[in-house]
Protein backbone atom coordinates (compact mmCIF):
# COMPACT_ATOMS: atom_id res chain seq x y z
CA UNK A 1 0.00 0.00 0.00
CA UNK A 2 1.40 3.41 -0.97
CA UNK A 3 0.91 6.74 0.65
CA UNK A 4 -2.32 7.35 -1.29
CA UNK A 5 -4.78 6.07 1.30
CA UNK A 6 -3.33 7.92 4.34
CA UNK A 7 -2.99 11.09 2.25
CA UNK A 8 -6.61 10.79 1.17
CA UNK A 9 -7.61 10.25 4.82
CA UNK A 10 -5.73 13.37 5.92
CA UNK A 11 -7.27 15.30 3.02
CA UNK A 12 -10.77 14.19 3.98
CA UNK A 13 -10.12 15.15 7.60
CA UNK A 14 -8.87 18.56 6.52
CA UNK A 15 -11.92 19.18 4.31
CA UNK A 16 -14.25 18.07 7.13
CA UNK A 17 -12.50 20.35 9.64
CA UNK A 18 -12.62 23.28 7.17
CA UNK A 19 -16.33 22.62 6.62
CA UNK A 20 -17.09 22.69 10.35
CA UNK A 21 -14.89 25.73 11.04
CA UNK A 22 -16.60 27.53 8.16
CA UNK A 23 -20.00 26.63 9.60
CA UNK A 24 -19.01 27.91 13.03
CA UNK A 25 -17.77 31.20 11.55
CA UNK A 26 -20.93 31.69 9.48
CA UNK A 27 -23.02 31.14 12.61
CA UNK A 28 -20.78 33.56 14.53
CA UNK A 29 -21.33 36.24 11.87
CA UNK A 30 -25.11 35.80 12.11
CA UNK A 31 -24.97 35.96 15.91
CA UNK A 32 -22.84 39.12 15.93
CA UNK A 33 -25.16 40.81 13.41
CA UNK A 34 -28.24 40.13 15.53
CA UNK A 35 -26.41 41.05 18.73
CA UNK A 36 -25.60 44.50 17.34
CA UNK A 37 -29.24 44.99 16.33
CA UNK A 38 -30.29 43.73 19.80
CA UNK A 39 -32.44 41.23 17.92
CA UNK A 40 -32.80 38.42 20.48
CA UNK A 41 -35.29 36.98 22.92
CA UNK A 42 -34.84 38.63 26.34
CA UNK A 43 -36.88 36.02 28.21
CA UNK A 44 -34.79 33.17 26.80
CA UNK A 45 -31.64 35.15 27.64
CA UNK A 46 -32.68 35.44 31.30
CA UNK A 47 -33.57 31.74 31.41
CA UNK A 48 -30.16 30.83 29.93
CA UNK A 49 -28.35 33.14 32.33
CA UNK A 50 -29.96 31.36 35.27
CA UNK A 51 -29.43 27.88 33.81
CA UNK A 52 -25.87 28.41 32.59
CA UNK A 53 -24.46 30.94 35.03
CA UNK A 54 -26.10 30.66 38.41
CA UNK A 55 -26.45 26.87 38.32
CA UNK A 56 -22.78 26.42 37.35
CA UNK A 57 -21.43 28.31 40.37
CA UNK A 58 -21.15 25.23 42.62
CA UNK A 59 -19.21 23.11 40.11
CA UNK A 60 -16.85 26.00 39.25
CA UNK A 61 -16.36 26.75 42.96
CA UNK A 62 -15.42 23.13 43.68
CA UNK A 63 -13.03 23.08 40.71
CA UNK A 64 -11.50 26.40 41.76
CA UNK A 65 -10.94 25.24 45.31
CA UNK A 66 -8.95 22.20 44.11
CA UNK A 67 -7.05 24.19 41.44
CA UNK A 68 -5.92 26.66 44.11
CA UNK A 69 -4.56 23.85 46.29
CA UNK A 70 -2.78 22.10 43.41
CA UNK A 71 -1.16 25.28 42.11
CA UNK A 72 0.09 26.44 45.50
CA UNK A 73 1.69 23.03 46.08
CA UNK A 74 3.35 23.17 42.64
CA UNK A 75 4.49 26.77 43.12
CA UNK A 76 5.88 26.02 46.57
CA UNK A 77 8.36 23.49 45.13
CA UNK A 78 10.05 26.25 43.09
CA UNK A 79 9.78 29.23 45.44
CA UNK A 80 11.16 27.08 48.26
CA UNK A 81 14.08 25.87 46.09
CA UNK A 82 15.16 29.49 45.46
CA UNK A 83 14.39 30.67 49.00
CA UNK A 84 11.51 32.86 47.84
CA UNK A 85 8.73 31.63 50.10
CA UNK A 86 7.49 35.20 50.42
CA UNK A 87 6.64 35.12 46.68
CA UNK A 88 4.33 32.10 47.00
CA UNK A 89 1.23 34.27 46.46
CA UNK A 90 2.55 35.70 43.22
CA UNK A 91 3.84 32.32 42.01
CA UNK A 92 0.56 30.50 42.37
CA UNK A 93 -1.73 33.50 41.72
CA UNK A 94 -0.10 34.57 38.46
CA UNK A 95 -0.62 31.22 36.75
CA UNK A 96 -4.13 30.85 38.19
CA UNK A 97 -5.40 34.25 37.07
CA UNK A 98 -3.69 34.52 33.71
CA UNK A 99 -3.66 30.99 32.41
CA UNK A 100 -4.90 27.90 34.15
CA UNK A 101 -7.97 29.38 35.83
CA UNK A 102 -9.69 30.59 32.65
CA UNK A 103 -8.71 27.45 30.68
CA UNK A 104 -9.81 24.92 33.32
CA UNK A 105 -13.03 26.78 34.13
CA UNK A 106 -13.78 26.97 30.39
CA UNK A 107 -13.24 23.21 30.02
CA UNK A 108 -15.56 22.52 32.96
CA UNK A 109 -18.09 24.97 31.53
CA UNK A 110 -17.85 23.30 28.13
CA UNK A 111 -18.48 19.88 29.69
CA UNK A 112 -21.51 21.07 31.61
CA UNK A 113 -23.12 23.90 29.63
CA UNK A 114 -21.72 23.35 26.12
CA UNK A 115 -22.69 19.67 26.12
CA UNK A 116 -26.14 20.50 27.49
CA UNK A 117 -26.66 23.15 24.81
CA UNK A 118 -25.57 20.85 21.97
CA UNK A 119 -27.90 18.12 23.29
CA UNK A 120 -30.81 20.54 23.77
CA UNK A 121 -30.54 22.15 20.33
CA UNK A 122 -29.74 18.79 18.71
CA UNK A 123 -32.91 17.28 20.16
CA UNK A 124 -34.91 20.29 19.03
CA UNK A 125 -33.43 19.93 15.55
CA UNK A 126 -34.07 16.20 15.09
CA UNK A 127 -37.62 16.47 16.48
CA UNK A 128 -38.50 19.35 14.11
CA UNK A 129 -38.92 21.85 16.96
CA UNK A 130 -36.55 24.25 15.19
CA UNK A 131 -38.73 24.05 12.06
CA UNK A 132 -41.71 24.54 14.38
CA UNK A 133 -40.20 27.85 15.48
CA UNK A 134 -39.66 28.88 11.85
CA UNK A 135 -43.33 28.15 11.17
CA UNK A 136 -44.22 30.60 13.92
CA UNK A 137 -42.14 33.19 12.05
CA UNK A 138 -39.50 32.99 14.79
CA UNK A 139 -35.88 33.28 13.70
CA UNK A 140 -34.11 30.33 15.42
CA UNK A 141 -30.79 32.23 15.53
CA UNK A 142 -32.36 35.18 17.37
CA UNK A 143 -34.46 32.96 19.62
CA UNK A 144 -32.09 30.09 20.38
CA UNK A 145 -28.50 30.98 19.55
CA UNK A 146 -28.02 34.68 20.41
CA UNK A 147 -29.43 34.39 23.98
CA UNK A 148 -27.21 31.35 24.60
CA UNK A 149 -24.17 33.13 23.17
CA UNK A 150 -24.68 36.23 25.32
CA UNK A 151 -25.49 34.17 28.41
CA UNK A 152 -22.44 31.93 28.01
CA UNK A 153 -20.02 34.83 27.49
CA UNK A 154 -21.35 36.73 30.52
CA UNK A 155 -21.62 33.59 32.65
CA UNK A 156 -18.08 32.38 31.95
CA UNK A 157 -16.62 35.83 32.67
CA UNK A 158 -18.50 35.99 35.98
CA UNK A 159 -17.66 32.38 36.84
CA UNK A 160 -13.98 32.95 36.07
CA UNK A 161 -13.89 35.96 38.40
CA UNK A 162 -15.62 33.94 41.13
CA UNK A 163 -13.43 30.89 40.45
CA UNK A 164 -10.19 32.89 40.50
CA UNK A 165 -11.16 34.41 43.84
CA UNK A 166 -11.97 31.03 45.38
CA UNK A 167 -8.77 29.49 43.97
CA UNK A 168 -6.67 32.27 45.48
CA UNK A 169 -8.38 31.92 48.86
CA UNK A 170 -7.88 28.16 48.92
CA UNK A 171 -4.25 28.65 47.87
CA UNK A 172 -3.61 31.17 50.66
CA UNK A 173 -5.30 28.87 53.17
CA UNK A 174 -3.26 25.82 52.17
CA UNK A 175 -0.13 27.99 52.01
CA UNK A 176 -0.63 28.91 55.64
CA UNK A 177 -1.62 25.45 56.90
CA UNK A 178 0.87 23.29 54.96
CA UNK A 179 3.72 25.60 53.98
CA UNK A 180 3.76 27.99 56.88
CA UNK A 181 3.42 31.07 54.64
CA UNK A 182 1.12 33.44 56.47
CA UNK A 183 -1.82 34.92 54.59
CA UNK A 184 -0.58 38.49 54.83
CA UNK A 185 2.67 37.59 53.07
CA UNK A 186 0.75 35.57 50.47
CA UNK A 187 -1.65 38.39 49.56
CA UNK A 188 1.03 41.09 49.77
CA UNK A 189 3.24 39.34 47.19
CA UNK A 190 0.21 38.71 44.97
CA UNK A 191 -1.04 42.30 45.03
CA UNK A 192 2.44 43.77 44.70
CA UNK A 193 3.55 41.75 41.69
CA UNK A 194 0.28 41.30 39.83
CA UNK A 195 -0.92 44.14 37.57
CA UNK A 196 -4.55 44.89 36.65
CA UNK A 197 -3.65 43.87 33.09
CA UNK A 198 -2.77 40.37 34.33
CA UNK A 199 -6.22 40.14 35.83
CA UNK A 200 -7.92 41.54 32.72
CA UNK A 201 -6.03 39.09 30.51
CA UNK A 202 -7.77 36.21 32.30
CA UNK A 203 -11.13 37.95 32.01
CA UNK A 204 -10.70 38.59 28.26
CA UNK A 205 -9.73 34.98 27.75
CA UNK A 206 -12.85 33.88 29.61
CA UNK A 207 -15.00 36.03 27.30
CA UNK A 208 -13.33 34.50 24.20
CA UNK A 209 -13.75 30.99 25.58
CA UNK A 210 -17.42 31.61 26.42
CA UNK A 211 -18.05 32.76 22.85
CA UNK A 212 -16.20 29.74 21.43
CA UNK A 213 -18.15 27.27 23.56
CA UNK A 214 -21.45 28.95 22.70
CA UNK A 215 -21.03 29.11 18.97
CA UNK A 216 -19.48 25.62 18.72
CA UNK A 217 -22.17 23.91 20.79
CA UNK A 218 -24.98 25.76 18.97
CA UNK A 219 -23.46 24.93 15.57
CA UNK A 220 -23.18 21.20 16.29
CA UNK A 221 -26.64 21.18 17.90
CA UNK A 222 -28.30 22.84 14.93
CA UNK A 223 -26.72 20.52 12.35
CA UNK A 224 -27.63 17.36 14.27
CA UNK A 225 -29.51 14.76 12.24
CA UNK A 226 -30.52 11.10 12.32
CA UNK A 227 -32.23 10.91 15.70
CA UNK A 228 -30.70 10.06 19.07
CA UNK A 229 -27.32 8.82 17.71
CA UNK A 230 -27.05 12.10 15.81
CA UNK A 231 -27.61 14.07 19.03
CA UNK A 232 -24.93 11.97 20.75
CA UNK A 233 -22.50 12.72 17.92
CA UNK A 234 -23.36 16.43 18.14
CA UNK A 235 -22.56 16.50 21.87
CA UNK A 236 -19.32 14.61 21.35
CA UNK A 237 -18.21 16.84 18.47
CA UNK A 238 -19.18 19.95 20.40
CA UNK A 239 -17.11 19.06 23.49
CA UNK A 240 -14.07 17.93 21.47
CA UNK A 241 -14.15 20.94 19.12
CA UNK A 242 -14.66 23.37 22.01
CA UNK A 243 -11.67 21.91 23.91
CA UNK A 244 -9.42 22.11 20.85
CA UNK A 245 -10.59 25.64 20.05
CA UNK A 246 -10.01 26.73 23.67
CA UNK A 247 -6.38 25.54 23.55
CA UNK A 248 -5.73 27.07 20.13
CA UNK A 249 -7.26 30.43 21.09
CA UNK A 250 -5.42 30.34 24.43
CA UNK A 251 -2.14 29.86 22.57
CA UNK A 252 -2.74 32.88 20.31
CA UNK A 253 -4.30 35.08 22.97
CA UNK A 254 -1.35 34.50 25.27
CA UNK A 255 0.87 35.95 22.53
CA UNK A 256 -1.46 38.81 21.65
CA UNK A 257 -2.34 39.80 25.22
CA UNK A 258 1.26 39.52 26.34
Amino acid at each position, binding site marked *: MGLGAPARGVGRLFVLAAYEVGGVFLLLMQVVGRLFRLDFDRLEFRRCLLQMGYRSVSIIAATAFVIGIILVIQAFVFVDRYGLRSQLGWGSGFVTIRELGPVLFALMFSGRVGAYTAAELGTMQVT*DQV*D*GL*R*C*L*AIDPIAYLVVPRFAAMVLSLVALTIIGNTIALFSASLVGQIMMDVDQHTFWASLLEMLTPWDYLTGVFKAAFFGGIIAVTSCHFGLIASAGAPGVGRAVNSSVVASAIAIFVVDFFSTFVLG
Partner: protein
Amino acid sequence: MINLVNVYRSFDGIKALDGLTLSVKKGGLLGILGPGGSGKSTLCKVACGLVKPDAGVVFVDDVDLIRADPKTVRRIQARCGVQFQNDALFEHMSVWANVAYPLQRLTDYSPGEIRAMAIERLATVGLAGFENQMPSQLSGGQRRRVALARACATEPEILICDDPTAGLDPVTSRHILDMIVGIRYQVRNTVVVVSSDTLGLLSIADRVALIWDGKLIAEDTPAVIWQDQRREVRRYLDDAKLPIRRPSWA
Protein backbone atom coordinates in the same frame (compact mmCIF):
# COMPACT_ATOMS: atom_id res chain seq x y z
CA MET B 1 -53.03 28.86 -3.45
CA ILE B 2 -49.95 26.58 -3.30
CA ASN B 3 -48.15 25.77 -6.54
CA LEU B 4 -45.08 23.59 -6.85
CA VAL B 5 -43.62 23.44 -10.34
CA ASN B 6 -40.97 20.93 -11.36
CA VAL B 7 -39.46 20.75 -7.88
CA TYR B 8 -36.29 18.75 -7.27
CA ARG B 9 -34.73 18.12 -3.87
CA SER B 10 -32.18 15.55 -2.80
CA PHE B 11 -30.47 14.79 0.50
CA ASP B 12 -26.94 13.32 0.41
CA GLY B 13 -27.46 12.29 -3.21
CA ILE B 14 -30.80 10.58 -2.54
CA LYS B 15 -33.68 12.12 -4.47
CA ALA B 16 -36.60 13.10 -2.23
CA LEU B 17 -38.49 15.11 -4.85
CA ASP B 18 -37.88 14.38 -8.51
CA GLY B 19 -39.49 16.95 -10.77
CA LEU B 20 -42.72 17.17 -8.81
CA THR B 21 -45.50 19.49 -9.98
CA LEU B 22 -48.55 19.91 -7.78
CA SER B 23 -51.07 22.58 -6.90
CA VAL B 24 -53.53 23.05 -4.06
CA LYS B 25 -56.58 25.24 -4.62
CA LYS B 26 -57.71 27.76 -2.02
CA GLY B 27 -60.10 26.15 0.43
CA GLY B 28 -59.33 22.64 -0.81
CA LEU B 29 -58.22 19.60 1.13
CA LEU B 30 -55.44 17.75 -0.65
CA GLY B 31 -54.55 14.31 0.64
CA ILE B 32 -51.08 13.00 -0.11
CA LEU B 33 -50.47 9.28 -0.24
CA GLY B 34 -47.29 7.38 -0.83
CA PRO B 35 -45.02 4.77 0.71
CA GLY B 36 -42.43 5.71 3.36
CA GLY B 37 -39.47 7.60 1.90
CA SER B 38 -41.39 8.74 -1.16
CA GLY B 39 -40.86 12.44 -0.37
CA LYS B 40 -44.14 13.35 1.35
CA SER B 41 -42.57 15.08 4.37
CA THR B 42 -40.09 16.92 2.13
CA LEU B 43 -43.04 18.09 0.03
CA CYS B 44 -44.74 19.48 3.15
CA LYS B 45 -41.59 21.33 4.21
CA VAL B 46 -40.98 22.70 0.71
CA ALA B 47 -44.60 23.91 0.52
CA CYS B 48 -44.19 26.12 3.59
CA GLY B 49 -40.66 27.31 2.85
CA LEU B 50 -38.86 25.27 5.47
CA VAL B 51 -36.79 23.40 2.88
CA LYS B 52 -35.43 25.06 -0.24
CA PRO B 53 -35.65 22.92 -3.35
CA ASP B 54 -32.54 22.33 -5.49
CA ALA B 55 -34.55 23.36 -8.56
CA GLY B 56 -38.10 24.35 -9.45
CA VAL B 57 -40.44 27.02 -8.14
CA VAL B 58 -42.78 27.17 -5.17
CA PHE B 59 -45.56 29.74 -5.08
CA VAL B 60 -47.84 30.45 -2.14
CA ASP B 61 -50.47 32.81 -3.54
CA ASP B 62 -48.28 34.94 -5.80
CA VAL B 63 -45.16 34.85 -3.65
CA ASP B 64 -42.20 32.89 -4.96
CA LEU B 65 -40.88 31.29 -1.76
CA ILE B 66 -37.46 30.56 -3.24
CA ARG B 67 -36.66 34.06 -4.41
CA ALA B 68 -38.49 35.96 -1.69
CA ASP B 69 -36.51 37.72 1.02
CA PRO B 70 -36.42 36.06 4.48
CA LYS B 71 -38.94 38.56 5.89
CA THR B 72 -41.52 37.70 3.22
CA VAL B 73 -40.92 33.98 3.75
CA ARG B 74 -41.50 34.45 7.50
CA ARG B 75 -44.71 36.35 6.73
CA ILE B 76 -45.92 33.45 4.58
CA GLN B 77 -44.86 30.93 7.24
CA ALA B 78 -46.89 32.84 9.81
CA ARG B 79 -49.96 32.11 7.64
CA CYS B 80 -49.23 28.37 7.72
CA GLY B 81 -50.00 26.01 10.57
CA VAL B 82 -47.82 22.93 10.37
CA GLN B 83 -48.25 19.71 12.27
CA PHE B 84 -44.98 17.82 12.06
CA GLN B 85 -44.58 14.08 11.75
CA ASN B 86 -43.04 13.74 15.21
CA ASP B 87 -45.24 16.39 16.85
CA ALA B 88 -42.38 18.86 17.49
CA LEU B 89 -43.97 19.91 20.77
CA PHE B 90 -41.87 22.24 22.91
CA GLU B 91 -41.05 19.83 25.72
CA HIS B 92 -40.21 22.52 28.28
CA MET B 93 -43.68 24.06 27.94
CA SER B 94 -46.98 22.77 29.29
CA VAL B 95 -49.71 21.61 26.91
CA TRP B 96 -51.50 24.92 27.35
CA ALA B 97 -48.32 26.94 26.74
CA ASN B 98 -47.59 24.96 23.56
CA VAL B 99 -50.98 25.90 22.10
CA ALA B 100 -50.86 29.49 23.40
CA TYR B 101 -47.35 30.13 22.04
CA PRO B 102 -48.33 30.80 18.39
CA LEU B 103 -51.09 33.11 19.62
CA GLN B 104 -48.61 35.02 21.79
CA ARG B 105 -46.09 35.35 18.96
CA LEU B 106 -48.36 35.99 16.00
CA THR B 107 -51.44 37.81 17.31
CA ASP B 108 -52.25 40.89 19.36
CA TYR B 109 -54.78 39.24 21.68
CA SER B 110 -54.65 39.99 25.39
CA PRO B 111 -53.25 37.30 27.75
CA GLY B 112 -56.79 36.54 28.96
CA GLU B 113 -58.08 36.08 25.41
CA ILE B 114 -55.09 33.92 24.53
CA ARG B 115 -55.70 31.68 27.53
CA ALA B 116 -59.38 31.30 26.62
CA MET B 117 -58.56 30.58 22.97
CA ALA B 118 -55.88 28.00 23.84
CA ILE B 119 -58.29 26.20 26.17
CA GLU B 120 -60.95 26.25 23.44
CA ARG B 121 -58.52 24.79 20.86
CA LEU B 122 -57.61 22.02 23.28
CA ALA B 123 -61.28 21.29 23.87
CA THR B 124 -61.78 21.08 20.08
CA VAL B 125 -59.25 18.24 19.90
CA GLY B 126 -60.75 16.54 22.97
CA LEU B 127 -58.08 17.54 25.47
CA ALA B 128 -60.04 19.70 27.90
CA GLY B 129 -58.53 19.30 31.36
CA PHE B 130 -55.03 18.49 30.04
CA GLU B 131 -53.91 22.14 29.98
CA ASN B 132 -51.33 21.89 32.76
CA GLN B 133 -49.83 18.54 31.78
CA MET B 134 -46.38 18.42 30.22
CA PRO B 135 -46.00 16.87 26.73
CA SER B 136 -43.91 14.03 28.20
CA GLN B 137 -46.92 12.96 30.28
CA LEU B 138 -49.14 12.40 27.22
CA SER B 139 -49.72 9.36 25.04
CA GLY B 140 -48.80 9.36 21.34
CA GLY B 141 -52.37 10.12 20.28
CA GLN B 142 -52.73 12.92 22.81
CA ARG B 143 -49.43 14.48 21.70
CA ARG B 144 -50.62 14.36 18.11
CA ARG B 145 -53.82 16.16 19.12
CA VAL B 146 -51.87 18.86 20.99
CA ALA B 147 -49.72 19.31 17.87
CA LEU B 148 -52.91 19.67 15.81
CA ALA B 149 -54.35 22.19 18.27
CA ARG B 150 -51.11 24.19 18.11
CA ALA B 151 -50.98 24.05 14.30
CA CYS B 152 -54.46 25.55 14.03
CA ALA B 153 -54.25 27.82 17.08
CA THR B 154 -54.12 31.00 15.03
CA GLU B 155 -56.70 29.70 12.53
CA PRO B 156 -54.06 29.72 9.75
CA GLU B 157 -55.03 30.12 6.11
CA ILE B 158 -53.02 27.03 5.26
CA LEU B 159 -52.92 23.93 7.46
CA ILE B 160 -50.28 21.31 6.65
CA CYS B 161 -50.47 18.02 8.53
CA ASP B 162 -47.51 15.71 8.02
CA ASP B 163 -48.72 12.20 8.78
CA PRO B 164 -50.92 13.05 11.77
CA THR B 165 -52.01 9.42 12.02
CA ALA B 166 -48.58 7.77 11.94
CA GLY B 167 -48.20 5.05 14.53
CA LEU B 168 -51.71 5.46 15.90
CA ASP B 169 -54.39 2.81 16.29
CA PRO B 170 -57.18 2.89 13.65
CA VAL B 171 -59.76 4.44 16.01
CA THR B 172 -57.49 7.31 17.14
CA SER B 173 -56.34 7.73 13.57
CA ARG B 174 -59.92 8.28 12.36
CA HIS B 175 -60.60 10.66 15.25
CA ILE B 176 -57.63 12.78 14.21
CA LEU B 177 -58.75 12.86 10.57
CA ASP B 178 -62.29 13.78 11.67
CA MET B 179 -60.86 16.62 13.76
CA ILE B 180 -58.96 17.93 10.74
CA VAL B 181 -62.20 17.94 8.73
CA GLY B 182 -64.00 19.69 11.61
CA ILE B 183 -61.30 22.35 11.84
CA ARG B 184 -61.40 22.82 8.07
CA TYR B 185 -65.15 23.51 8.07
CA GLN B 186 -64.81 25.76 11.10
CA VAL B 187 -61.85 27.82 9.84
CA ARG B 188 -62.43 27.39 6.09
CA ASN B 189 -58.73 27.10 5.36
CA THR B 190 -56.68 25.27 2.77
CA VAL B 191 -55.52 21.91 4.07
CA VAL B 192 -52.78 19.51 3.01
CA VAL B 193 -52.76 16.16 4.79
CA VAL B 194 -50.16 13.45 4.42
CA SER B 195 -51.34 10.17 5.87
CA SER B 196 -50.57 6.49 5.82
CA ASP B 197 -54.25 5.83 6.64
CA THR B 198 -55.15 5.44 2.97
CA LEU B 199 -58.83 4.70 3.40
CA GLY B 200 -59.25 7.49 5.96
CA LEU B 201 -57.55 9.99 3.70
CA LEU B 202 -59.58 8.92 0.66
CA SER B 203 -62.70 9.55 2.76
CA ILE B 204 -61.90 13.13 3.74
CA ALA B 205 -59.90 14.64 0.86
CA ASP B 206 -61.25 16.69 -2.04
CA ARG B 207 -58.33 15.59 -4.15
CA VAL B 208 -55.64 13.00 -3.61
CA ALA B 209 -52.07 12.93 -4.88
CA LEU B 210 -50.06 9.71 -4.98
CA ILE B 211 -46.31 10.16 -4.77
CA TRP B 212 -43.72 7.48 -5.40
CA ASP B 213 -39.92 8.01 -5.37
CA GLY B 214 -40.42 11.77 -5.36
CA LYS B 215 -42.58 11.71 -8.48
CA LEU B 216 -46.29 12.46 -8.80
CA ILE B 217 -47.90 9.22 -9.95
CA ALA B 218 -51.53 10.35 -9.90
CA GLU B 219 -53.59 13.32 -8.77
CA ASP B 220 -57.37 13.41 -8.88
CA THR B 221 -60.53 13.08 -6.81
CA PRO B 222 -60.62 10.12 -4.39
CA ALA B 223 -63.25 8.33 -6.49
CA VAL B 224 -61.11 8.51 -9.64
CA ILE B 225 -57.96 7.50 -7.78
CA TRP B 226 -59.82 4.56 -6.23
CA GLN B 227 -60.79 3.24 -9.64
CA ASP B 228 -57.52 4.06 -11.37
CA GLN B 229 -56.30 0.81 -12.89
CA ARG B 230 -52.80 1.93 -13.77
CA ARG B 231 -50.23 -0.49 -12.44
CA GLU B 232 -48.32 2.07 -10.34
CA VAL B 233 -51.54 3.23 -8.62
CA ARG B 234 -52.84 -0.29 -7.99
CA ARG B 235 -49.42 -1.23 -6.64
CA TYR B 236 -49.87 1.27 -3.82
CA LEU B 237 -53.61 0.84 -3.17
CA ASP B 238 -53.44 -2.97 -3.29
CA ASP B 239 -50.38 -3.00 -1.02
CA ALA B 240 -52.42 -0.91 1.44
CA LYS B 241 -54.67 -4.04 1.86
CA LEU B 242 -57.83 -2.18 0.91
CA PRO B 243 -60.70 -2.16 1.25
CA ILE B 244 -61.60 -3.41 4.71
CA ARG B 245 -64.91 -1.77 3.93
CA ARG B 246 -65.77 0.07 0.76
CA PRO B 247 -66.23 3.80 1.06
CA SER B 248 -69.72 5.11 0.19
CA TRP B 249 -68.59 6.69 -3.07
CA ALA B 250 -66.75 3.59 -4.38
